[in-house]
């Protein structure tokens, strides 16, 4: 092994070291398991199972020795605890699923394992992926007896973002070289931005939702989070592909090698700058970092093109109608009958449902179920849910209009850097409003990224959001990679990690 510590290597470098047998998959797994434990005060991991991890690692060492290794052979990764996994608890951050053991693996988990990745464990997240700060998890992190905050390694009194908060922290603190996340309204991009790492959400329908505990089915997408675009491309290539028998919304679009175009020139690339993303709600420190990244792009030969996404503001009510409506339907399966929590005392079946759900769900989940049940109820469906679905199409059309004059769209991921733990505590609306820049791309189902672009207030990381047209993941990763060849923000590390 070289003198560089294992946790300083990215996925691409680590995969090469493993292939060349300068380090074994078992050594790599042990190294990261030890780091996960040493830094468990961050609250990133909710479960590990060293027996399973090391058995997977030994199998990969054998595959490497036999010459049958996949592209990610022996690379340790961890999964957001929204993906169901055999052998590790699958909780979705909810008391409702405390200790739940899935009889099967999510398709994304299987595909990454088929590529040779080794599972280190499960990562903390907001309950059923509902949240923007990871403050809604009801599960005790590894090493804790009760739920505890997930802490941003750049400043441990700050939130990591959400809902894939544990995922972002694990990468930023070098507790895993890469992880999975899910993005419904920004849950990959926003924590990636807040923790100074790289994350991509593919086009809706490219990654199978089978085994991803459902929040909002027409929005949920899986994606990788890692330190660089190059590493994200390696994981995304393994994660995507049709799953026709298991996910009815999975698209018949073949898997793709997303690494192939990373180094293409971006000379002449037209980057659309939506005026609505740079208005008065944007903090000056975030704006300065984003402007700096855009200047780098100009130096690389890209052209900045002013565009308009006129319904950006409307994406907040539209999203917060559609997502809770779908959530209220999806979460009706948690009734205490076939799996999960069941209340101890009840009078009859309906009382059992009501008490089970009252005990098993946290406040934010209950709020969204209530909103969803209301907007789908008789007399309100047309005025709320259907109206939101119609404006959703107008928002998607606005993007198609914008892409006539640009190749990718760039802007901030979030209006501010990561806030302090507890700052939005009693005001759920504050979290909703902070999602404004990620929601439009989610509603349109477009691929989107967060790429480290600099630092703002308190030395906290700032991400640049890149949005592409449908199926343009390779172009986004190319644009992100070229920026990362010219800057070193993605290589910076929080002190002490």
């Amino acid at each position, binding site marked *: 092994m070289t003198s560089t510590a294992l946790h300083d290597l990215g996925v691409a470098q680590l995969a090469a070291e493993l292939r060349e047998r300068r380090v074994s998959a078992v050594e790599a797994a042990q190294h990261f398991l030890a780091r996960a434990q040493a830094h468990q005060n961050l609250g990133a991991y909710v479960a590990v199972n060293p027996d399973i991890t090391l058995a997977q690692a030994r199998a990969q060492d054998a595959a490497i020795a036999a010459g049958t290794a996949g592209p990610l052979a022996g690379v340790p990764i961890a999964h957001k605890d929204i993906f169901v996994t055999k052998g590790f608890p699958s909780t979705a951050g909810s008391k409702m699923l405390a200790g*739940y*053991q899935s*009889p099967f693996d999510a398709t994304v988990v299987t595909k990454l394992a088929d590529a040779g990745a080794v599972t280190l464990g499960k990562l903390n997240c907001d309950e059923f992926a509902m949240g923007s700060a990871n403050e809604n998890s009801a599960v005790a992190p590894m090493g804790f007896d009760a739920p505890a905050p997930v802490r941003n390694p750049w400043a441990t009194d700050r939130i990591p973002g959400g809902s894939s908060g544990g995922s972002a922290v694990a990468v930023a603190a070098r507790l895993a070289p890469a992880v999975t996340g899910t993005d419904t309204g920004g849950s990959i991009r926003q924590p990636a931005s807040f923790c100074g790492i790289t994350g991509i959400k593919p*086009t*809706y*329908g490219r990654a199978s939702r089978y085994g991803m505990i459902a929040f909002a089915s*027409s*929005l949920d997408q899986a994606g990788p989070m890692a330190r660089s675009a190059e590493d994200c491309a390696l994981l995304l290539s393994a994660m995507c592909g049709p799953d*026709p*028998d298991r996910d*009815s*919304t999975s*698209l018949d679009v073949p898997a793709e090698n997303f690494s192939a175009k990373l180094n293409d020139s971006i000379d002449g690339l037209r980057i659309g700058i939506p005026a609505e993303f740079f208005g008065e709600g944007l903090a000056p420190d975030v704006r300065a970092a984003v402007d700096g990244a855009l200047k780098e792009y100009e130096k690389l030969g890209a052209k900045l093109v002013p565009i308009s996404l006129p319904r950006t503001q*409307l994406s907040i*009510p*539209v999203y*917060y*109608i559609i997502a809770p409506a779908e959530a209220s339907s999806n979460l*009706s399966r948690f*009734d205490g*009958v*076939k*799996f*999960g929590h*069941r209340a101890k005392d*009840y009078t*009859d*079946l309906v009382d*059992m449902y*009501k*008490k089970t*759900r*009252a005990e098993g*769900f946290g406040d934010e989940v*209950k*709020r969204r*179920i*209530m*909103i969803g*049940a*209301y907007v789908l109820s008789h007399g309100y469906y047309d005025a*709320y849910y*259907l*109206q*939101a*679905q*119609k*404006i*959703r*199409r*107008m928002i*998607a059309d606005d*993007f*198609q209009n914008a892409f006539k004059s640009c190749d990718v769209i760039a802007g901030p991921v979030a209006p501010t850097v990561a806030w302090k733990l507890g700052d939005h505590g009693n005001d*759920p*609306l504050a979290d*909703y409003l902070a999602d404004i820049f990620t929601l439009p791309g989610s*509603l*349109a*189902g477009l691929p989107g990224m967060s790429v480290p672009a600099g630092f703002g207030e308190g030395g906290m990381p700032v991400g640049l959001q890149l949005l592409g047209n449908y199926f343009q993941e390779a172009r986004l990763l190319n644009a992100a990679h070229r920026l990362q060849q010219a800057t070193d923000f993605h290589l910076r590390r929080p002190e002490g990690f």
Partner: protein
Amino acid sequence: MALTPQDIGRIANLARLELTPSESERMLTQLNGFFDIVEQMRAVDTSGVTPLAHPVAAIQDVALRLREDVASEPNQREANQQSAPAVERGLFLVPKVIE
């Protein structure tokens, strides 16, 4: 058009959620705050616009598939029931539903 405490009770019943009186009160305030920001959406003229369900349908037809109606999964009753709250002789136990 603000929600009333009766509305909260009705929705909670539809959603099969038991709310304590203080939870109901908080829920009323928070939902009314939420529906204030929804008002801007209701004013948008959407006549003639088709609702968008699968986002990629914005650019191409997306057909929802049906798979063949054949059993594809092996029987793994024990694995499927290992996280069940109450099981007896391979059956899920629930409170009496028929008198």
